[in-house]
């Protein structure tokens, strides 16, 4: 498994990059919100920027969407320089901000007609386009209601629809599911996948590890304005080292005995699970895990279940951020 270290462009032809950024820096007063970030997003990919609140995700995205001017560094979107040709960049992108950027006093339909007219659809064509989007996003019935009466999920859907009046080459989504309930979140995920399937490059920020894991082909992890790691979800997980062996015992009374055996074979402490007679322990390799399992059986400890899991992205993230804080510098993932 080969993870590209930070600072090295992904190995694709330059023509295939939808977004390319080098050394982006943006400060607000004394705070360096973005502190030298390189980014390469191949065309047609869902790319996630993962990081905690205040990591610089939104600022990075705003620079790429021409809403903020970089203090240093450069970036191109679909080949257009964000500094030199912002108007051309704007013609190729759409951005859905963190908070629904809609006119709450207007109806859903009016919001979309307004944007359609701004894009150049005239009269009837603007209404037709608004109608198509409302239908596609399940908002046809709410079309004539004011947006202030919409639920959070409906707003978010309308907000994304508003970004699709003209199909953008690159869609920026800033925390697209923050504040949504699980079912609305799944709706948004479906929409994002559908868009990617139609060839739209999507750059999304998220603080949900699961979201990046579910959606993105590639993930950049950002903390304190710096990129601390980049790769596929699988690569990031593998980069933290190991998988985890989970076992469930048939007889809870032998938990202590089983923990001792696992710790002996795997060299890590066994953590009791959240319920019943379960244990989790880091396992270096699948071979080591199967040896430990065989030893449990040889000692007559019966298992009701076992599984080998990769570490969660949460664990990966904490491992990466802890490392970057320790080193005071970027962590290179992989070899």
């Amino acid at each position, binding site marked *: 498994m080969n993870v590209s270290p930070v600072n090295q462009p992904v190995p694709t032809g330059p023509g295939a990059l939808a977004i390319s950024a080098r050394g982006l820096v943006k400060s607000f007063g004394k705070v360096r919100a973005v502190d030298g970030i390189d980014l390469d997003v191949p065309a047609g990919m869902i790319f996630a920027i993962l990081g905690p609140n205040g990591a610089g995700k939104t600022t990075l995205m705003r620079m790429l969407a021409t809403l903020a001017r970089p203090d240093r560094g450069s970036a191109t979107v679909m080949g257009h320089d964000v500094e030199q040709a912002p108007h051309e960049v704007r013609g190729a992108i759409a951005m859905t901000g963190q908070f629904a950027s809609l006119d709450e006093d207007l109806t859903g339909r009016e919001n979309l007609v307004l944007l359609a007219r701004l894009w150049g659809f005239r009269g009837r064509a603007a209404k037709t386009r608004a109608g198509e989007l409302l239908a596609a996003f399940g908002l046809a019935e709410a079309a004539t209601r004011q947006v202030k009466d919409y639920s959070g999920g409906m707003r978010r859907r309308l907000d994304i629809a508003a970004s699709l009046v*003209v*199909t953008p080459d690159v869609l920026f989504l800033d925390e697209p599911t923050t504040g949504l309930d699980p079912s609305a979140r799944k709706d948004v995920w479906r929409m994002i996948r559908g*868009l990617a399937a139609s060839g739209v490059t999507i750059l999304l920020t998220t603080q949900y590890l699961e979201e990046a894991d579910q959606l993105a082909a590639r993930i950049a992890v950002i903390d304190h304005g710096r990129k601390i790691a980049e790769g596929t979800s699988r690569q990031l997980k593998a980069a933290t080292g190991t998988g985890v062996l989970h076992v469930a015992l048939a007889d809870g009374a032998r938990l202590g005995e089983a923990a001792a055996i696992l710790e002996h074979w795997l060299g890590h402490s066994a953590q009791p699970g959240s319920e019943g007679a379960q244990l989790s322990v880091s396992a270096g390799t699948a071979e080591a895990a199967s040896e430990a399992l065989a030893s449990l059986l040889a000692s007559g400890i019966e298992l009701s279940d076992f599984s080998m899991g990769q570490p969660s992205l949460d664990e990966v993230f904490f491992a990466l951020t802890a490392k970057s804080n320790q080193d005071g510098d970027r962590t290179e993932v992989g070899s």
Partner: protein
Amino acid sequence: MNETGMPLLVRVARPKPPSALSNALVFGWRAVLKFKHVPEQLFDLVMTPIMFTLLFTFVFGGALAGSPGEYLQFFLPGILVQTVVFNAVYSGMGLSTDIGKGLFDRFRSLPIWPLSPFAGLMVGDILRHLIAATIILSIGLILGYRPEAGLPGVLAAFLMLVAIGFGTGWIFIVLGLLIRTPTTVMTLGFTFLFPVVFASNIMVDPVTMPGWLRAFVEVNPVSLMTTALRGLMSGSATFGQVFRALIAPVVLTGALAPVTLWIYLRRD
């Protein structure tokens, strides 16, 4: 919601880019829609001036001018100026709200004429000024106010009001761009406007004021606007009065329109 939204998978290309004027008209249309959906905004705009008109006319009118009727004849053009100047605060609040909600981020990420959202604000403002002034004038007419210059005088006065509102509007557009909380825009706006509006010749003739205050009142742009408006509606306006009334709106526009552009385009 159905499937993944299949119609989306059909890529929709960008139509021919619209003109700057077309962009501006779309924002004007938005301002008109606001009146349709939030008619109560007019209530906010006209209630204060209506209360002022009634209270000043009937409570102070007799004492100040001999009779409520005579006072109304003096006071009504001034209250129109006050209405328009106060109205400008609301458009600053609206702008602050739009920016706070991220609506302007959406507009700024579109390939449109960058100033078109402001053109829309102006359309909304002008409509607001005309509607509010019409309501106040109607109430004045019911109470017995009579513009000696008739309809032409009233039309000229309304044009002047639009110019005053346009000029004053820039102050609050700048505040709206700079201040994130709409209520702060309002508080700041009224803190600044109250002394300027009260230390003017809207309510009373300044002859009884102490000398230092009278000196201020006589050069206060609000006084100059009020004098011109009284002249236009009574048919006694001089060219000089109209000219002096327009100095402040012209200076404000010349100074603050570029500032507005600069703040809006600096992209922070």
